[in-house]
């Protein structure tokens, strides 16, 4: 499996329910909105975690993203997908947080320490055999991601972790596909130097 095909809202009955939830949320029903939260919190939390590389900040940002989404849900137009809209909010929140950071923090020597904190917070049932190896690899990937420019990191995140097409990424970032591709290949080049030396252990 090249890309994670987890909960991505690709099944049509699921999408129908999603549009019902969106419609109810637009009428101010926060229980319907919490159904959307339940569906999207894992990808959004992981997006913020990889973008920000800090579990506490990722948690705060994820909450901010859902709160902003609920406050602005009336402005969401049905002509785009809910996920595209939500990703846009999440990416913009992460980018503005990264911009507020003092320069060079994402290259700090302590970059790996937050990962240890995540590992210690993992529920036991997730840490079955094989997961520990995988967790080590993911930790490496997340550390390598921190060497990217925020704009490039966002594109890589949406492409490789959120499994979006170039067109979908272009809709989230609101930039032409050619820009998306050039950022992606530039980012990939950096990742190849950071990760290419390690053998894939899949």
């Amino acid at each position, binding site marked *: 499996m090249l890309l994670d095909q*987890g909960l991505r809202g690709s099944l049509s009955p699921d999408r129908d329910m999603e549009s019902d939830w969106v419609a109810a949320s637009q009428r101010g029903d*926060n229980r319907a*909105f*919490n159904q959307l939260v339940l569906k999207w919190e894992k990808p959004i*939390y992981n997006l913020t975690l990889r973008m920000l590389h800090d579990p506490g900040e990722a*948690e705060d940002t994820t909450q901010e993203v*859902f709160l902003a989404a609920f406050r602005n849900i009336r402005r969401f137009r049905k002509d785009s997908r809910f996920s595209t809209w939500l990703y846009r909010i999440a990416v913009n929140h992460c980018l503005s947080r990264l911009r507020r950071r003092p320069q060079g923090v994402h290259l700090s020597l302590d970059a790996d320490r937050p990962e240890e904190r995540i590992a210690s917070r993992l529920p036991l049932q997730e840490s079955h055999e094989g997961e520990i190896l995988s967790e080590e690899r993911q930790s490496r990937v997340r550390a390598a991601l921190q060497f990217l420019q925020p704009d490039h990191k966002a594109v890589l995140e949406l492409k*490789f*972790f959120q499994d979006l097409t170039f067109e979908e990424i272009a809709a989230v970032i609101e930039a032409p596909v050619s820009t998306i591709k050039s950022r992606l290949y530039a980012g990939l080049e950096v990742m190849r130097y950071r990760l290419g030396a390690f053998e*894939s252990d899949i």
Partner: protein
Amino acid sequence: MAATCREFRNYIPRAILGDLSQEEQKALDQHLAECSPCNREHQTFGNTVRQLGSGLDVPVPRHFFVYPEESHSTPWRAFLRMSRAWQAATATVLLVFGFASLLAVSRLQVRSEDGALVIGFGRLPERRPPAPQIMQVDSSALEAKILKAAAERSRQDNLEFLRTLRAEMARSNKAIGREQRALLEQAISNVELRMGQLVSTTAYDLERKTDRSVQDAYRKVSLERARDMAAVDNRIKLLAINGEVKSTQTDAILATLLQVAELRMQ
């Protein structure tokens, strides 16, 4: 590294993401079969992308539910979110507005005036009851004047008539006999008598008319008095409306009025 290799190196990441045309892909495949460094590079890139894509999402540390009280922004929360300068400005505006409205409400007076509602801020201009216009009627002088005018008029008419009659008699004196002359004298005296009666009747009528006009004058005066009383009543009512403090003032005024009235009675 050969020029062709450099060109194919650019193809590698695009190939891995499926972003090459069929021709480009074919050319790359051919090159990779022949060139082992490029092949290794291709594998390295594949490795990198596999590592990126293999990331399993970590579970969420908690749920990120949104609650209605969070979602609804109250004015107080909006105020707290403002910058210091805006908070100060808003507070000042609110204070000034609140003080002004308090002032306006406390000094607001509503009362009915001539059947219309009058709303005023602060002290209303004192409403003065119209000054009683008491008509000074000297009834006896009026009566004398009227009688004098009536008498004058009757006397002149009378004299005029008699003069005409006497002139007529003088002209016809030569033509009439003694008896006829006696009859005429008689007729003139009758006329004189009737005229006298007429004058006295007129005088009586005039007297009655005068009486009536004097009565009208009195009625008018008493009507004015009643209106004044009503104005005073209104004023007392208004004082009562204007609150507890003023109602004690009204009580004091009433008490004074009663005392004055009792003094008059004695």
